[in-house]
Every structure is written in structure tokens, then in C-alpha cells.
């Protein structure tokens, strides 16, 4: 992946065409996403910004195959995902995408090591290799010494590092982060952003949702969203 990105730097990883997500709440129809179109290329670092309730998370969940669009087309790596089976969607999430969430989303009764190991188990990686890769991932986020700690025994910044380790352990090429620094103080947030920059320099595609203009400014490109519309692409 990292090698080929040089030659195919114009390859379109994410293509959305007129995608809508419609919620029915009581009698009201709410378009959380309304004919949103955008394209993200391989190796790009893109931030998505917009006011609260504008549809950022909705967009991200569709891109990450956690949710399905009601209208429009979505191509991931050139493939229309509409016809994917539940099993195939799970496999793509597992192999191609690394998620980082605002509230970390770690499994609280498992220690850091087991949390990071989980996606590799779903990939059926043999135990010995799992152990090696989990160690590498924890090293990379600077948490090698905390492998035995449960999430409740870690600070917010450390928990987010565990989550990032879990995202990178499968070596995906696309990282989706929904306000990864939202629950952290600015210094810790900077440290987490540093990790994303490293991942970007290694040739990965990064899509990052944020409220913070300072964080958004660190991306190569910003996509603005309001009321479910993609209003501006810089």
C-alpha cells in the first residue's frame, strides 16, 4: 500500500454521489445527510468541520460502513458497497479501515492488550504473530508499559492511544477519526494529532472530524458541512 500510493496518488478511495441519510422521527422526516457528494483520494489528510448536528458523524458512519445510505452511491476503493453482504462489510471494516472515536470505545472489561488484539482475532491471525503485532502497535503509540491496564486504569489520552493502537494493528490504509481529541485537553490532543500526522506521512488516508478550527487547519484539505449539505470543499 505504502509503495503503490506514490504511483497512484490520484486514486480515489472514497467517492460519495448524492448520498442522503433519512431519519423518520415521529411524523417528521429528517435528512441528516442531504445529497452529499465528495471525493477523497489515497494518501490525503482531510478534515470535516461543521456545527453540531450538521451530519458529520452520520457522514463518517456511512464512509466507515457502520451505517448505510438511504439514497445515492458510495464507492470504496472503486467498489460500490451497496450490494455487500453483512459478512463482507464486516470484513472490509476489519481489513481496510481503522476507527478512532471521540469516546474511545474500548471494551472496559478487557485490558489494553486484549483490546488491541481483538481485530487480529477476527482476522484469524495466529497467536504468535498477534502477540508480536500487538506489542508493535502499543510501542508505536508509546503505551508498551501499560499493556496490562484496563481502560478504567488509564487516562483519557492513554485510552485514545490504545484505541489508535487498535486501529493501526491491522495495518489498514484508511483511518476514520470522529473528534478524536474532543474529550482531551489541548496538550494531550496535540500528542494524539501527532500520531495522525505520522500515519499520514506513512502514506495512509486520514479523514478526521473536528469542531476545533486549529485541529482542522492541520489537514491538507477541509470539507465543510451544514444541515446535511456539503457546502464547501477547500
Amino acid at each position, binding site marked *: 500500500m505504502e509503495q503503490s500510493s506514490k504511483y497512484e496518488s490520484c486514486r480515489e478511495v472514497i467517492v460519495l454521489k448524492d448520498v442522503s441519510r433519512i431519519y423518520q422521527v415521529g411524523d417528521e422526516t429528517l435528512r441528516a445527510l442531504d445529497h452529499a457528494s465528495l471525493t477523497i483520494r489515497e494518501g490525503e489528510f482531510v478534515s470535516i468541520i461543521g456545527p453540531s448536528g450538521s451530519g458529520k458523524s452520520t457522514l463518517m458512519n456511512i464512509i466507515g460502513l457502520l451505517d448505510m445510505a438511504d439514497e445515492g452511491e458510495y464507492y470504496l476503493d472503486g467498489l460500490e458497497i451497496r450490494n455487500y453482504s453483512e459478512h463482507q462489510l464486516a470484513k472490509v471494516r476489519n481489513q481496510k479501515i481503522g*476507527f478512532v472515536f471521540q469516546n474511545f470505545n474500548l471494551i472496559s472489561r478487557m485490558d489494553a492488550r486484549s483490546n488491541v488484539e481483538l481485530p487480529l482475532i477476527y482476522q484469524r491471525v495466529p497467536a504468535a504473530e498477534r502477540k508480536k503485532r500487538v506489542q508493535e502497535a502499543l510501542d508505536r503509540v508509546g503505551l508498551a508499559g501499560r499493556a496490562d491496564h484496563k481502560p478504567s486504569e488509564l487516562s483519557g489520552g492513554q485510552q485514545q492511544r490504545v484505541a489508535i493502537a487498535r486501529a493501526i494493528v491491522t495495518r489498514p490504509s484508511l483511518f476514520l477519526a470522529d473528534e478524536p481529541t474532543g474529550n482531551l485537553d489541548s496538550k494531550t490532543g496535540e500528542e494524539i494529532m501527532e500520531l495522525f500526522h505520522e500515519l499520514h506521512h506513512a502514506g495512509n488516508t486520514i479523514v478526521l472530524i473536528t469542531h476545533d478550527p486549529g485541529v482542522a487547519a492541520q489537514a491538507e484539505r477541509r470539507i465543510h458541512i451544514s444541515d446535511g449539505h456539503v457546502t464547501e470543499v477547500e
Partner: protein
Amino acid sequence: MFLQSVKMAWESIRSNKMRSILTMLGIIIGVFSLVVLVSLVSSATHSISNEVSGLGSSSLQVQIMDDKDNPLSLEELLEFEGQGDIGLVAPLTTRTMGVKYGSKSENSAVYGSTPEYQKVQDVTLSCGRFLKESDQYNHTSVAVVSKDVVTSIMKMQNVEEALGKELHINGQNFTVVGVMAKKDSTSSLFSQADYTVVVPYTTLTRMSGVSREILSFAVSAKDGDLSSAQKTTGDLLMKRLEQDKKAFYILNFNSVMDALNSVMATMSLVLGGVAGISLLVGGIGIMNIMLVSVTERTKEIGIRKAIGADRRVIMQQFLIEALMISLIGCGIGVGISWGALRVAGIFFKTFPIRLSPGVVVLSIAFSMGIGLIFGIYPANKAAKKKPIDALRYNG
């Protein structure tokens, strides 16, 4: 993957010990009652049928209650042999007499019979010989005794020692010529010790207070067909005893055994059914807890799906968890039953109590079935959650 699921299930059970144990309690109690009740019934059945077969299930025992003042003689009785399906016939004239050796004396059942007794009553000898035809002719004073007579009355450890020794029976001396082996009925439900002495019929009927009439005898079947031998014997006795069917009684141990077995089987079924219901209730407990667990872990399910678990994997995880709870519960239940039966065996000596392996297998199968059946609904509920809905869930 399967191994990983087992590991995860184990961790989830362990991380919530108290709740897991309470969930298992239903299964533990169900398995315990099933295993203990069925084991008790089957132990009782086993020892009773051993006792009954020890009494001679391969022969018919005939009692004549009313001889119409025309007693049956040995010669008449021997004419029964070979008729219809009757094989051999042996008189069972019996008296309880004091049997004395040295200073020790005990009341024993003394049978006056013929050499046929050995075949009809299925006697195996530990040593020596059985009665012979010549003993019958010569009214010899010889005796074949049971092992308990040798060990308890004659106080000898080795049965061979008893051969040739003299017993005093009712003031008369008898030479021990043979020792009968114990039937392999290990229990002693009906008799504490088996004091049996067999002497020639002709010798016994010469002793004081014993008449020559035959009121009791045993019949064997020609081809092992006891019920048709029973019919032939019945017909012969009807003719002999003025067509009075109340004048005699034929005991067929086979039909006693059949009746006994069917009563015991019904008992097992009823008790097993009651225990089965408590197992079923235990299963509903599992379902209840698994449903709570699914709701509680909605977020976890969402996380797992986000990082690559598909429906099958989630389903597998929850099913294995339900199966494990029921199987661990079953294991504990079987363990407690085993201990309880051992303890019961120490205090309750009437018959040996053992764990019935059949019911253990049955309860394992039943517990697995319950784990599966009551696990499927919660597991499916967990598996079909949409990733985003599960992730968004705030319990």
C-alpha cells in the same frame, strides 16, 4: 476462532462470577436432582433384581397350600420331569433347624432335595461335590452347605477345610461334602447371612418331625421358556389337586422381575421428569441472564462489529457463553451428586448406591440442549444489532 470464542466466553463468565453462579444454580439443582433421584432408583432396582435373581430366576418355585389330604410323593413329582416344557424337578422340603459346629449353633434353612437341585436352582460349587443318586438310595448323612455356614458357623476361612467335617443338625451328624459358591448378589437387602444346608430328601424325611409329603418344589424349563413350563406345571397340578386353582401357587421370578423393572422404570421416568422440569426452569434462567447480558453489552457488540466481527462471530460468542454456563452448571451438579451419593452410601448400608452413568450422559446432553435452545434467542438478538445502533447505545 472457536478457541478464541471459548476464551472470551470464559472471561465474560469469570468477570461476573456472582451472576454466573446464580445463573448456574438452576442447572446445578436440576442436574443434582435428576442424577441423584435416577441413581437411587437404579441402584435400588439393581440390588433388588440381584436379590431376586439370587433366589433363582431360572426356575419356578411351586407351593402347595392344600393337598386335599392326598400328599404328593417324590415318585409322583419325578413323573413331572420331561412333560411339556418342564425340564427338571427338585423337591424343596425345608425346615429351619439348629446347625451346630463346635460350640457355635445357628438356625439355618435345611433343604431336603435331590441331585437335580443343583441344576434347577443353578448352584455353583466352590469345592467338593453335590448330592448324588446314591445318597438318595442310601439315606446317607451328607450335607452341602452355603459359604456363610462355613465362615460363620464353622469359623473357617478356607472353604476346603470344611470338607469331611461333621455338622450336628437336629441331633444327627452330617458330613460336609460340598460348599456352594455365593450368588453374585452383592447386597443383603433380604437376608443378613445366607445359612443354607442341602441334604438328601430321603435323609431329611427320616428325621423326627419331618413328613414325607412334598409341599414345595422347584421346576426348571426345558428350553429356558419359563412361562410355558409354568403352564404345563399348572395344568398337571390342576389335575392332581381336584381342579382347585387356589390349592397351589407358582412363583415365576421372571415375571416378578419384569413387573419390578417396569415399576422402577416408571419411577425413574416420573422422578426424572420432575427433575427435568427444574432443569428447564434453569434454562429459562439462562435465557433471562443472557438477555440482560446482551443489553448490557450492546456497546461492546457495537465495538466488536466496528472492528470486524460479523453476525456469525457475535452469535457464536453468546451461544458458547450460554453453553458454557449450562455445561459448567451441569459439571458442578454432577460433582455434587457424586459426593452426595458417596456420603449416602456411607450411612445407608441396605444396598450399594452408585452414580448411574446413563443419567450423567443424559444430563450432559440435556444441559447442552438447554444451553443451546435458551441461548439461541439472546445470541441472535445480539448478532443482528446494526453496528451503528449498537455503538450509539447508552445503557
